[in-house]
């Protein structure tokens, strides 16, 4: 296929796989006879060959251009009147109004009464500048982001074990050669379909093991001898992993040489898993002993052959014990000697488009650019120097997302709030409480390109650019920095968030410099990250444009780091740390399986992304899956009189969802599944709880107790 001269190489707007694609503006786009897209002329997307997606795209990627010229696009600042109706206002008025509101809030309630909520979909430049904007222009410590709901548990576990958190510490293509891959709580066949190509080797070797209470599309790839599907009871992943470590140690699969030379803490972990013999694990997880043993055998055998990988996803991480669960997965990997070798390893599959870069450059409450700790005096000094300010001017740590949202409108809480690239009214746990918080604010500013459910609550909505209209960088799930390029001219009236921050910084007399130019901001980010864990100092746009792969850490003068830990882990002594973990009865967690309650797990569908604010507006995707459906086993449905396709209520003390039921034997009969892409009555997060992991601040998304009742038809 010849590429038109006005085609632009960029990457998909959605998930962390960041599939490479080409965008061609409408006028000269090639005719696409037979393509199932609507005939409306719009920019044309084609898949582009790249090591991660190999030209593949999923349905979301193929249809992503439908949002660019979408009729519902917000193209002017909108101010909400006393009557609740949003009306257009000029940019100058909007920006003056915000500056005035910030100053008033600060004057009467102090700087921490202004808060910022960022997103894992923002480019590195925007994420970086947002953190700086909060700390210097707003002078607040109250900034966090939706990545707290995403990567925080695996990140905390990775830092604890390896001294560094990069989702995949190896290029994705390394998986191709592996004989065994253990995939825990990740449904890649729906969330990032082109990823499946990299599991082909493990499938051919019979070594793909998928752990999920549902027989997902990904679990289906284990059929016909390609591997195993383990379906544990929700919220028992930690016990499952302790059992696998037990088997590894007792059955003689531990890599003693590796453990001795490259790790610390093995003895304590070995003692702690001595109590988790397989039969005991079976009695808690429901996973038969022979499958546990076979899983460990496959991993150990793979490690001695083509390689073995253990990968975790949100299914095991989004729990109040998510950090400990990810730690248990890492412990298993370390016992088997996988991390830090050339053909094996542990990784976590980052979710959001820039979920990796978004957690490195300072939009986290406890963090400064370069994955630096905000409490570390040396880190503060370095960043202050780059910013040209006194380190004392940088506020201390703020509140993690769930607590930040819980503080909205409360005494000593946040009163004026900025939201960038997040739809918390749908995506945050216990959504009805979040909505209450948003409504209790003095002033809410939302930057978005659609009237998302969160934007509808805003006093002021600022229209911003979409992916194909902006320049910048994204860091994919491998820690590879990619170039996002502008293929199209943005609508008149929409502005970049960098420009908005620069304008506001000026009105607020902020110290330092706030540029509206992405490359300038990236140059500053490089300096700020220099010497940090996530060091980008050797990367520039020219390098990225040349197509050279750039994996961080990439200190100036180096060639980057495709594979981490080959010689040493990132702790001072170079050793990986095994930490004993054990399940504990968390009183904040819903007691599961009392009476007739079912366990609710939430997750994604292939056709939708995150809160659905974008994908519900794509006709092809919304047409394919227009509404939320509750997946329920026919046995559980039968005892409740629920027909296939019938309407049900899914309820607990936090809220009630009304939706259609869909019978499926692919889910445990004690468990139901709801996608979290839908709003209002169908919002799965009406049911999830604000209980959080004490280490990471991750909320409990994956195990809520619910009662399911058939809704009478009249």
């Amino acid at each position, binding site marked *: 296929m010849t590429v038109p001269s006005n085609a632009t190489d960029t990457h998909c707007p959605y998930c962390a796989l960041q599939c490479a694609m080409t965008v061609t503006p409408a006028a000269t786009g090639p005719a696409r*006879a*037979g*393509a*199932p897209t609507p005939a409306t002329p719009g920019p044309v997307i084609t*898949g582009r060959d790249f090591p991660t997606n190999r*030209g*593949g*795209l*999923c*349905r979301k990627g*193929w249809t992503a251009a439908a949002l660019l010229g979408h009729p519902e696009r917000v193209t002017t600042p909108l101010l909400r009147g006393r009557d609740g109706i949003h009306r257009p206002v000029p940019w100058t008025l909007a920006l003056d109004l915000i500056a005035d509101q910030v100053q008033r809030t600060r004057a009467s309630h102090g700087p921490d009464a202004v808060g910022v909520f960022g997103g894992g979909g923002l480019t590195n430049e925007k994420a970086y500048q947002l953190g700086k904007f909060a700390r210097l222009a707003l002078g607040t410590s109250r900034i966090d982001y939706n990545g707290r709901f995403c990567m925080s548990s695996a990140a905390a576990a990775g830092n604890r074990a390896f001294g560094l958190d990069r989702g995949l510490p190896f290029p994705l293509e390394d998986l191709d050669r592996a004989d065994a891959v253990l995939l825990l709580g990740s449904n890649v*066949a*729906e969330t990032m*379909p*082109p*990823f*499946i*190509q990299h599991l*082909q080797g493990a499938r051919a070797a019979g070594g793909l093991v998928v752990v999920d209470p549902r*027989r997902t*599309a990904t679990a*289906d*790839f284990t*059929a016909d001898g390609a591997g195993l*599907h383990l379906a544990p*009871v929700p919220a028992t992943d930690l016990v499952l992993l302790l059992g696998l470590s037990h088997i590894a*140690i*007792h*059955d003689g699969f531990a890599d003693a040489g590796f453990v001795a030379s490259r790790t610390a803490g093995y*003895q*304590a972990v*070995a*003692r702690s898993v*001595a*109590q988790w*013999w*397989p*039969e*005991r694990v*079976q*009695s808690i997880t*429901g*996973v*038969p*002993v*022979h499958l546990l*043993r076979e899983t460990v055998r496959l991993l150990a055998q793979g490690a001695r052959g083509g390689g073995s990988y253990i990968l975790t996803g949100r299914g095991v991480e989004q729990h109040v014990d998510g950090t400990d669960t990810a730690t248990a997965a890492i412990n298993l990997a370390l016992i088997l000697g996988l991390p830090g070798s050339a053909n094996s390893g542990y990784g976590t599959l980052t979710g959001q488009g820039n979920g990796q870069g978004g957690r490195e450059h300072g939009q986290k409450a406890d963090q400064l650019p370069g994955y630096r700790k905000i409490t570390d005096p040396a880190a503060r000094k370095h960043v202050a120097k780059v910013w040209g300010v006194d380190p004392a001017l940088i506020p201390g740590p703020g509140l993690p997302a769930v607590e930040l949202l819980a503080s909205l409108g409360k005494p000593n809480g946040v009163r004026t709030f900025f939201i960038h690239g997040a739809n918390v009214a749908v995506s945050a746990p216990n959504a009805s409480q979040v909505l209450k918080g948003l409504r209790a604010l003095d002033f809410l500013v939302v930057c978005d390109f659609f009237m998302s459910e969160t934007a509808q609550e805003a006093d002021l909505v600022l229209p911003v650019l979409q992916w194909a209209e902006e320049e910048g960088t994204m860091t994919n799930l491998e820690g590879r920095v990619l170039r996002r390029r502008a293929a199209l001219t943005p609508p008149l009236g929409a502005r970049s968030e960098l420009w908005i921050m620069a304008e506001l910084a000026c009105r607020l007399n902020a110290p330092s410099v706030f540029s509206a130019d992405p490359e300038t901001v990236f140059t500053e980010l490089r300096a700020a990250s220099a010497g940090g864990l996530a060091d980008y100092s050797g990367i520039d746009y020219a390098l990225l444009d040349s197509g050279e792969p750039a994996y961080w850490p990439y200190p100036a003068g180096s060639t980057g780091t495709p594979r981490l830990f080959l010689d040493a882990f990132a702790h001072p002594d170079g050793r990986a740390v095994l930490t004993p973990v054990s399940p504990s009865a968390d009183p904040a967690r819903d007691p599961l*399986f009392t009476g*007739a309650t079912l366990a609710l797990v939430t997750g994604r569908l*292939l*056709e939708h992304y995150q809160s659905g604010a974008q994908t519900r507006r794509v006709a*092809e995707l919304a047409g*394919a899956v227009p509404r939320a459906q509750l997946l329920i086993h026919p*046995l559980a449905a*039968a*005892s409740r009189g629920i027909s296939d396709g019938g309407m049900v209520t899914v309820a607990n003390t936090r809220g009630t969802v009304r939706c259609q039921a869909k019978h499926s*034997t*692919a889910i445990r*009969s*004690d468990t139901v599944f709801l996608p979290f892409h839908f709003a209002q009555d169908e919002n799965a997060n009406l049911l999830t709880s604000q209980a959080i992991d004490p280490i990471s601040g991750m909320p409990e998304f994956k195990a809520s107790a619910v009662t399911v009742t058939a809704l009478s038809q009249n």
Partner: protein
Amino acid sequence: MTNTPLHIVVVGYGPVAARFVDQLLPAVRSGAVALTVIGEESAAAYNRVLVADLGVGRTTAAAIALSDAAELVAAGVNVHLGTRVLRLDRARQQVRLADGTSLRYSKLVFATGARPVVPPLHGLNPDPAARVALPRGVTALRDLADAAQLSDAVDRKAKVVVLGGGILGLEAALAAQDEGASVTVVHHGTHALARSIDAGAGHTLAAALRSSGITVISNARSVGVQLSPGHDGELRFSALLQESGAPVEGDLLVLSCGVRPRVEVAAGAGLATDRGILVDHRLAALHDPNVFAMGDCAQVRCLDSDCADCAASDGPLGLIGPGWRQAEWLADFLTGSLAVPLPAERAPVMMLKARGVDVAAAGEVQAGPFDPVPGLSVSQWADPEHGKYVKMSTRDGVLAGFISVGMPRTGAELTLLFERGSELPADRSALLRLDGPDRDTAATADPARTVCRCAGVAEETITAAAARGCSTVAEVSAVTRAGTGCGGCHGELKELIEKHFAPA
């Protein structure tokens, strides 16, 4: 508020004591508790559940360790190994050890566990107080030294005789047979695991044991052991003698005849005992608020004669799970961070630890489907030829008991349902199908069926593309987007294209 630490002395250092000590470590580090633990064995606590595995070489002594004495000492715990308590003086609140020391306590916790029952066989000394070793070639498989004896026999591919048809005996028998020994199981009664399973399951299990190579002698009455001089001239076990029939010859006799709680120190101090040391729902000895007991030596039976939980109490539960829960609870209780009483234990689930022989059972299992037991409904599935047997008993739809043999997934789910007290599905056979094939392979022929999920392309769209001349997967992909995501449907695309172009 005084700063004097609470002196807690733990008698016994098995798995339950180890959990108790772990739970108290923060209080020890903070100085709130001064903790002493006394273990009779020279090794720190290890997981006794895995002693049989150790004996057959399936694990190592290092791997079954639960505690590290040096680490505890470093944390400030006073650890006495290789000694035991001779006497408890409740009036003075002190214990006297065999090594001559005396220790004062504010709270004393018995975690003395149980010792194996030595059956009354001619040639063995059955006195529970006897500290005389068993004859050579006879072991009760309780501690590390016993494991070493079994290990030696397995290494030599020796003939092992297991006396007793209980769960521990069967586990040892199956493991030893698997690892190369030649095993005979001798038990009284018609079938093994008689306390947990019914005759049908017993028959199915016996067949499984036999097919794994084990000789099973049921309805046996063993009367004595025969000792013969070995190569070194010393007497050692050579056969288990029967009341009738031939002696069962072997090189090692493993006694698996149950355990007896170790209560003698408590009883000697005048504390109330039955089979175990009697304690209330806070694990306190009945007439001494400063003495507690937990684990295999503790029998919960309170003074309230109307207490429903205690009505059926006939001894300690003898399981590690409840013991660990008691240990955690008691540690929290003694450090004042807990006010709620210990929840009553559900009836235990018996699960055989063995490779290739899956047996799980719990609750009411003896009644058959047509037996007139009021309120009890029983469903049953038996397929002896293939070694499968399942029974489910329910009361008001709630699982009251079950047995599962040879059906691992079914057994795993029934275990969960029993422990939750869940209702069974009205269609009980649904549970049996869990051990069927993973998915329904009968694909439906539906032209609107989605072939490529990633791009959402139906079979009819692909067939239509083929009809318009697309003859390769790449061509079909270019026109329909099918196969452009994960690539998982390429095989099916190829089939559909070939089907279209195949000569009629």
